[in-house]
């Protein structure tokens, strides 16, 4: 029973998504009068499809799902590190610039993969962030916030 909970919830989630699309489609205005096909039609079809497929998935999950053999045993407690890296990076990319955000993402992610050499990893992260910034923002002209770099190396 235990391993069925995940897939069952997933199926219910798909049904919920379908209902959300159906309800959202219902609130859309405008029906092209002479054809009967407007901005609602296609969303309605997709919402209905999601509900039907979700129900089918719940039934399949109830009967037992065939899952691929997982590659190697699971490691616990790693996702918070990686997610924390990404959330933190998203929060600081505009105020502090891309190089520091990239360093933050890199450092926390390496910890998620089991490396505990904090200073070493942070240094590689900063170097990678600066390198990517210089190549993409300065050489290729991609829009990236530089943070502290811009104060002593202003954009021309």
């Amino acid at each position, binding site marked *: 029973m235990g391993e069925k909970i995940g897939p069952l919830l997933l199926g219910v989630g798909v049904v919920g998504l379908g209902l959300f699309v159906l309800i959202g489609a219902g609130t859309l205005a405008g029906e092209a009068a002479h054809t009967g*096909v407007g901005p609602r039609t296609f969303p309605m079809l997709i919402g209905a499809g999601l509900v039907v497929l979700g129900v089918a998935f719940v039934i399949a999950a109830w009967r037992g799902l065939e899952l691929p053999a997982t590659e190697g045993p699971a490691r616990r407690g790693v996702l918070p590190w990686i997610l924390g890296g990404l959330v933190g990076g998203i929060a600081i990319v505009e105020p502090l610039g891309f190089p520091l955000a990239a360093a933050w993402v890199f450092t926390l992610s390496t910890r998620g993969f089991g490396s505990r050499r904090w200073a070493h990893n942070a240094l590689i992260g900063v170097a990678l962030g600066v390198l990517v910034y210089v190549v993409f923002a300065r050489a290729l002209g991609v829009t990236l916030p530089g943070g502290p770099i811009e104060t002593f190396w202003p954009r021309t």
Partner: protein
Amino acid sequence: MDTLAALAQGFAVALQPVNLLFAFVGAALGTAVGVLPGIGPALTVALLLPVTYNLAPTASFIMFAGLYYGAMYGGSTTAILIKTPGESASIVTSLEGNLMARRGRAAAALATAAIGSFVAGTLATIGLTFVAPLMVRVALAFGPAEYFGLMLLAFTTVSAVLGASRLRGLISLFFGLGLGLIGIDTQTGQARFTLGLAPLLDGIGVVIVVVGLFAVGETLYAAAREPEGEVVRLSGAMWMSREEWRRSWKPWLRGTLFGFPIGALPAGGAEIPTFLSYLTEKRLTKHPEEFGRGAIEGVAGPEAANNAAAAGVLVPLLTLGLPTSATAAILLAAFQGYGLQPGPLLFEQRPDLVWGVIASLYIGNVMLLILNLPLAPLWARLLMIPRAYLYSGILVFAFLGAYAANASVADLVIMLGIGLVGYVMRLYDFPAAPVLVGMILGPLAEQQLRRALALSQGDPRVFLTRPISAALIAVTVAVLVLPPLIGWARRARARR
């Protein structure tokens, strides 16, 4: 004769020194990134998209051509040296290829893959050159009803034929179709499913979704597992014995014959031809005892099929605007980013671009052969990057790609959300390609549906009274309904 003249024009564009440089950079970057484990061709192209943001369209697509083929070459190196295929079409290569490598014949396996890819890629590009103009002529006769039928067929084959589970493929497809709904309705101008959030008005970018699913989702999945599989050391020259040549050339040609036509069908995909090629070689070989222990035919054939299919996929993409693989969906998005819509009109309006890209596919293939044969040991060293650094680096580049598309923090938040969905999909074995095909093709399908019904005054029978569209819909229904019916009939007979 027209085709040859157009191709000559294309070579005139592609052989300009600047464009040669772009083709080379694309091929080299594509190989380097494609070699990295966990990065398939789709993610390779998406991650390297920011490189092209400030290039003119022609230069940019010439580079894409190099990237696209380069990622394929790189992927086969990964599949052979560590048993981690970056995409489903390399699974077959990794079977016999990895076994060969373990028996100390890694160099021969890589060589037959590289030369086979070159032979198949070149033959299939010739096929593309001559089939594409014919398809353009057919496509000109297509109205909205036919396009809609074609898209239905592409939806079902991408999601229901490929992959392990029809149901999961369809759920992926509908999830993608749902993502495609977000944004402003092109015909009435009203916002749909934007939840009142301004950043969603333009819809969700394909790059954001690719990076979320393949980079973030895959990294979360990889972090949550113990690593397995070891890298096979590469020693000795990248060359094959006379015997190995003799055993390789027929599989190369047969693989091309499977790969190009199936890839060029609007139903497309590279998985089926690689499996067909593997089964054929297994049946025809004079060394059946070697299959399952590393037979060179089992690498040569599927690799050729894979590359030929990759060129074949460009036929429906360029002539109909129909993507039939995850990578093709990103290429289509890149075209749209420049305000270009692939299809018959593109051949008329921008022949320099279309034929320049096709010509640079020929050139890219030659460059890749040169890059891959002597330099294979160099590429193989990229596999030694520790997992922690590899995946953390992928995240940094994912971050860059998602942010740089619009300089928008909102896109990063969407990437993270899609990444979590991608992780769950990976856990329960949902395929990712249908999400991309659904989200990019969905809005186009809706447009054609509404156009067809507007032309017919709302009469839905228009899809069944026009012969081509009726045939396409009949095939679609057959693809969906026949396999379960056959399975049911078999079980019923077995019970008796």
